[in-house]
């Protein structure tokens, strides 16, 4: 939405995002990997632990269904 004046009358110009000039977005091309802060490190460790736990549970269930483990 842009305000503009013509013959002493003020207009507002509205353009659909798809019809507008593309704007320069935040540059992400050359940033590389995220800096490993304490929060990032703890979060990724928690995620790894969660995924290992889930995989262990699934593996146990598959072995149980295959009759290798009795439960």
């Amino acid at each position, binding site marked *: 939405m842009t305000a503009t004046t013509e013959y002493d009358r003020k207009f*507002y110009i*509205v353009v659909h995002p798809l019809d507008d000039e*593309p704007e320069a977005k935040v540059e992400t091309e050359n940033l590389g990997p995220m800096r490993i802060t304490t929060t990032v490190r703890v979060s990724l460790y928690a995620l790894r632990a969660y995924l290992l736990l889930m995989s262990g549970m699934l593996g146990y269930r598959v072995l149980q269904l295959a009759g290798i483990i009795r439960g």
Partner: protein
Amino acid sequence: MVANNRTTLDDCRTAVRPEPIRVSSPWAARALTFLMVFGPGLIVMEADNDAGAVSTYVQAGAQYGTHLLWLLLLLLPITYFVQEMVVRLGIATGQGHAAMIYRRFGKWWGRFSLADLLLVNFLTLVTEFAAIALALAKLGVDPRLGVPVSAIGLTALVLTGSYRRWERIVVFLCLLDLAWFAIAFRVHPAMGDVARHTLLPSLPIGGLNASWLFLVIAIVGTTIAPWQLFFQQSCVADKRLRFSDLTSARLDTLIGAVFTILVAGCMMLAGNAAFERHWNFADPALMAVQLGAVFGPILKNGLLLLMINAAVLGTTTISLASAWAYGEVRGWPHSLQKPVREAPGFYAVYAACVITAAGLVLIPGAPLQLIILSVQVLAGLMLPSAIIFLQLLLNDKEVLGERFANRRWNNLVNWSIVILLFVLSLLLAAQVALPKLFPNS
């Protein structure tokens, strides 16, 4: 390999662009801008009321009447806060979620997220077509004819080379869900109970039990799904929303969240009609037939058509989430604005998802129950990881700066949501994988 899907200045110079609209009032300008931005938020929220959600909400109503309505009210801010983060990230970077995970967390996490997303999305698509087949059969249409026709229609929907055309059709399909309000009104719920159980959380009669707890978790899992994060960010990027569109995009998301939660409440009220009559049913299509015997064929046919609409909405959005994510990561052109000849890989992924899932449903004796269980387990794996990456990306000031990054209060709310979803996803997946851990479930 991650590619930039941004439109270049050359693209814009060669394209024929319509005249901008002039209005004299600032209010009219704001309203018009909002209407132009409106779409992704409503679509992502309402498409989440897909076939699986219809089944879960109706089952919740049929088992516990109006007693779980409070949960929907609680989920309203949670679902809004999660999707609002995606809007900010999409507008700031103009990139999809899969591309951002690849760039900032490396190939391993990027591949893991993409593979998990594609798998869980595909299995969910199978359940959408299973619901279409079930509802068509109850409407007297042979699924062997109806399912392929639906798959062809859903593929044709995206092949027009126009984002706007796709969005208008899908917004129209979302608005068809207003019919759920008519159904909820027709089954005459006790409005006093509805108001009381919406505002005051209550435990089931007889106290807490495992099946109630897992239904609660299933409702949370249904309302906040991993594909939504990928879908909305890619959708915002494809629509090329600008920095100045952030407020309108937030309002779009809020309206979508409110509408979706209200529709979900109506679904529970439809189930409540079965609860009041002590009916048991195996699926919502069967419940529609039972309710039709009491309230007439219009209600039965309306419910079955709404089930099909829910599955159609789910199918187009979930398939697009996969196609956008795969296109971003492979570096292919990936935009609904591009004709098929300019983005063949993107459209091929979409068509492959739709047609293969439809084909699988038509195989006699396909293991649909196993597929539904797998969806629950994989969604349990997917949601915490997707949401952790989202939360970390929103704190990435190197990318987002102060303007778009999370504030302190955002982090407080969002980390609480992340921890809650971690615990609930773990419990749900554990219940599916190790049912003996939880007696009476």
